[in-house]
């Protein structure tokens, strides 16, 4: 009996405990914040070797682990010193002399010297490494001879002393420093990257602000602050990259507090922005979204009037406002606003169904008669399918019939690109292009120059000798003021005379970041350029311990 009574008393007390707790004076809030940033990433970075870094996931990790000679200031995209503390460019624009910063160390403790720069750059051109980003150094003197095995070394690289590195170019390249600020131009230590077993893929070593401490594939990657970072130890102790593919699950985890950043929106973006107004950030992005034509095949081949008809038939404004909920902005041409040489005067094409029908008749298809139903190729993605449906409906009201063909990305690429010699199957397709460096060349040369027909970038197989000539001239001039008119003229010809593709919109970037993450700067080159070493976590009740 006594035992039962005691048990009852204890139970009653236990029940009361929460109430008593609730009544006691609240403890002063002393949130001890761990300096840990928990980032969401869709999947593992495919390429942790910077020489192969060619997608935003790989770029994100490589930019945290590695540094190059120079860097972009994330917002203004001005070139700033990184491993090189200063540099000189010769008058003819051909020779770049870099002075390396003293005391730069790799994660393995070794001091970085010009020999490492030489090794890293030579490695990018080495046919055995087969770097996807070889084009960043392809303009260096002697690069081709080295790549083809006619020379043992690259003539244009020299390291006269441990702190000096000299690059000589074949022709002037006014955006050369920008190329050196891309993630691929990272400086890596020879003793680690000479490994035939490629151990560096799992355990990258660089001189950047964070080192890879632990990587469980498809689960998480732990980046740890590098104490000897030459620009000062980052404020964050750790960046925990969590690989969560399903955006709906990731969004739930973000809401729940297990993530501090979320880079992909699920469902209506307007309602997300309303739900999380302090977290939702939107910024311009140097990228263009368009639907391309296969200019090497009928009916688009040699028929600019037909291409103009397509351009007049589509209502860009409602595509951007309704389908994309304002996350895209209508464009009149190719270059994204914010790119040097962006031409606000470019007329482009406004939505005008009457004019569309007129051009359709001029093209030889009055009322759409005689024009076969075209396949519109889209890779499987909900938003892109909605965009394709909107374009399909607009075109139909002007008498043009298209059928949507949704396929997976690899199939999509093959149908679009073909080979340099023969065009792919796709005649009409959705496409997009992001700039790797803030120069008109990053768009126009790759998309329009006939040298790049096929997988190199010009998949529409656009070819106009006048445009080629303008682009070649602009590539090799030093002064931006002289280059811009050439690029603008090339863009005008491609847009207004040739209607090279169906110009639609420019991208913006959107990301959710918890308000307690401070120091965030969004770069027009994409969210992978958020400078992780400048971020810190402000004390905040929401800052939860990590729990992946």
């Amino acid at each position, binding site marked *: 009996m006594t035992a039962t009574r005691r048990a009852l008393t204890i139970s009653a007390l236990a029940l009361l405990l929460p109430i008593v707790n609730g009544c006691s004076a609240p403890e002063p809030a002393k949130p001890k914040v761990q300096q840990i940033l928990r980032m969401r990433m869709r999947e593992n970075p495919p390429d942790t070797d910077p020489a192969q870094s060619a997608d935003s996931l790989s770029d994100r990790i490589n930019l945290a682990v590695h540094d190059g000679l120079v860097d972009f200031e994330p917002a203004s995209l001005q070139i700033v010193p990184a491993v090189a503390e200063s540099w000189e460019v010769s008058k003819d624009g051909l020779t770049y002399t870099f002075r390396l910063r003293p005391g730069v160390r790799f994660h393995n403790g070794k001091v970085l010297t010009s020999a490492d720069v030489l090794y890293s750059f030579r490695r990018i051109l080495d046919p055995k490494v087969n770097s996807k980003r070889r084009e960043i150094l392809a303009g260096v003197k002697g690069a081709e001879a080295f790549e083809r095995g006619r020379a043992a070394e690259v003539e244009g690289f020299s390291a006269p002393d441990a702190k000096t590195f000299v690059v000589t170019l074949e022709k002037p390249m006014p955006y050369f420093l920008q190329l050196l600020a891309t993630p691929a131009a990272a400086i890596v230590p020879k003793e680690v990257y000479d490994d035939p077993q490629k151990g560096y893929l799992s355990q990258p070593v660089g001189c950047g602000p964070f080192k890879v401490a632990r990587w469980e594939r498809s689960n998480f990657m732990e980046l740890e602050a590098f104490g000897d970072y030459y620009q000062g130890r980052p404020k964050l102790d750790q960046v925990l990259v969590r690989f*969560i593919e399903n955006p709906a699950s990731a969004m739930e985890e973000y809401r729940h507090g297990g993530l501090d950043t979320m880079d992909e929106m699920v469902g209506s973006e307007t309602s997300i922005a309303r739900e999380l107004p302090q977290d939702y950030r939107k910024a311009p992005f140097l990228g263009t979204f368009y639907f391309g034509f296969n200019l090497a095949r009928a009916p688009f081949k040699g028929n600019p009037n037909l291409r103009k008809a397509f351009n007049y038939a589509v209502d860009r404004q409602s595509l951007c406002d309704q389908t994309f909920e304002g996350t895209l902005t209508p464009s009149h041409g190719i270059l994204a606003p914010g790119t040097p040489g962006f031409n606000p005067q470019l007329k482009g094409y406004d939505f005008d169904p009457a004019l569309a029908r007129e051009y359709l008749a001029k093209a030889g298809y009055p009322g759409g008669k005689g024009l076969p139903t075209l396949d519109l190729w889209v890779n499987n993605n909900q938003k892109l399918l909605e965009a394709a449906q909107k374009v399909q409906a607009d075109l139909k009201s002007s008498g043009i019939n298209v059928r949507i063909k949704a396929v*997976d990305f690899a199939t999509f690429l093959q149908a679009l690109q073909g080979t340099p010699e023969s065009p792919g199957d796709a005649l009409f397709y959705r496409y997009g292009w992001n700039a790797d460096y803030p120069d008109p060349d990053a768009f126009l040369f790759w998309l329009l120059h006939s040298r790049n027909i096929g997988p190199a*970038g010009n998949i529409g197989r656009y070819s106009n000798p006048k445009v080629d000539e303008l682009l070649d001239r602009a590539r090799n001039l030093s002064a931006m003021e002289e280059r811009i008119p050439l690029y603008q003229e090339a863009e005008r010809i491609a847009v207004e005379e040739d209607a090279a593709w169906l110009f639609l919109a420019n991208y913006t970037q959107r990301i959710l970041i918890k308000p307690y993450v401070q120091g965030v700067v969004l770069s027009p080159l994409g969210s992978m350029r958020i400078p992780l070493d400048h971020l810190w976590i402000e004390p905040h009740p929401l800052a939860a311990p990590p729990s992946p």
Partner: protein
Amino acid sequence: MNSYLLRRLFSVVPVLWAVATLIWIILFALPGDPAVMLSGGLRSDPQVLERVRAEWGLNESGWAQYLRYLTRLAGGDLGTSYLQGRPVSRILAETFPATAILALSSMLLAACGGVALGLVSAAWAKRWPDDLISFFCLALISLPVFWLGMMLILLFASRLGWLPVLGYGMEGWKIPATQIRLPELNHLVLPALTLALFSLGAICRVTRASLLEVLRQRYILSSTARGMRPAAVHLRAALRNALIPVITVVGIDFAALLGGAVATEFVFAWPGLGKTIVHGIADRDLPVVEGGVLCLCLAFVLVNLAVDLCYALVDPRVRLQ
């Protein structure tokens, strides 16, 4: 028994060869160029493309590629991932344990839960508990795993906060001398439950049907006549004989779970094999897909063998020859 085992194990070889060939043909016929995916996708330098093709032998004829592939497999080499540059065997060793643990724990849950519910259902056949359980089972069989997973997350993680939303956890116990790390237990609950609920319905239905059939037999009547209590009749006399079809379903479901947990792995960000294979297909990382499918095929065959051995264990009339 031993010769039976040996024969069965030996028969795996032609099965593996057939599967290896089939998957190779499917992947070979699949549109999309692995070399393009490997050289940058949207923008691939023609020089780089050419070298990639030469490096991986993608410029050779179909026959030459197939023969090289078979020779490699015969030597026990699953090849190297195009994308990760690491041996496929290592990738499988990393991802298969996560899938196996998930499949095993969910099968355990489903088998125990399904048999228990089936027993209750059969004991109260045609009465309200039976109707309720039948309804519940039908609902579970019909719900898409993807949706069920999201709902469980919303309820148990977001609303109630009892369990983590997703992931494998960072700490879990590491099996000594291996690279295998077990998931944190609280991380395992939701994905295992999602998968289990799906199989549970079927197991419950089969148990009920099989039990009802056994209960009609004469030896049950004689057991009851000898004065055995109804519970003992069900549990001791009937259940064991009713288990044969249940074992079949559990075996098939378990093997299917090993390969078919993709949706669950996707919802819960589970670092398993299913997701790896799906990624491999999307990226045209052919060696990973081939290796992954072969691994699943082997697991399937072995599970089936285990099921056959279980028959002999449960039913002494079954002789393995």
